């Protein structure tokens, strides 16, 4: 059973890597984002607020860098 939060973090990890491979973000930012997401993933309890959850779902198909950075911010700070 995969929780929605788990799937979102998985998506953010993939997106982070893809952004780096497309040279949209620098290596430092890639490392920073990766460690942040892994940190959240290692905490087994991770619940998103609905608004932020919907935001992160929406950026799935969007490769805009600003939206991705906002998504990373959401992952970083929105921990209930």
């Amino acid at each position: 059973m995969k929780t929605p939060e788990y799937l979102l973090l998985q998506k953010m990890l993939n997106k982070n890597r893809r952004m780096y491979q497309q040279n949209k973000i620098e290596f430092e930012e890639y490392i920073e984002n990766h460690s942040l997401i892994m940190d959240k993933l290692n905490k087994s309890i991770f619940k998103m607020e609905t608004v932020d959850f919907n935001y992160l779902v929406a950026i799935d198909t969007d490769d805009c860098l600003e939206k991705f950075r906002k998504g990373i911010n959401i992952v970083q700070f929105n921990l209930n």
Partner: protein
Amino acid sequence: MFRQGNKIKQSKSAYIGSVLLIVSAFLPSLDVLSKWLIPGMNEARDSRGVLMTVNIWLATLYLSPVILIIATYFRPNPKLYFFPLCMFLYAGAVYFSPIIGKEVNYLQLNSWLFFVISVFSALCFMYTLRYVRMLTLVETSESDFHEDVKEKFDMLTAENDRLKNKIRSLENKLDENS
């Protein structure tokens, strides 16, 4: 309505799948239900002398996994896998209860402890699976990350060597000129 993957799932197929999952979970209880609802079912036998309830129980037991497999194709709510898991654990525990020397009957009050243990075991099973999935993701993403870091470091080392060679060649040129 529930979340499946990253999307909010509200389709007919998901509902059908969820219903099928619950049906597959409770189908092997049909013989007990028939005992409760149909008078005289306890004693009814078929032409071979086998109890009708046993026939029903065996038939539903074989049918239930088929329905379960069909349900998976409808992409049901994954949380509902709890029900078949729990009921099958419970049925298995009750069936093998004579080993511990106690008389325990299916869906009777004397099997409440077995039921509690089954619920607990099913929950443990699901949480363990969730944890294993998380571990797998962590391992996969870490290995991907290590690959990327190695690639970057190789690139930086190559660039460093190239720059060193350039400096060396410039120094040689300067020496020649002087």
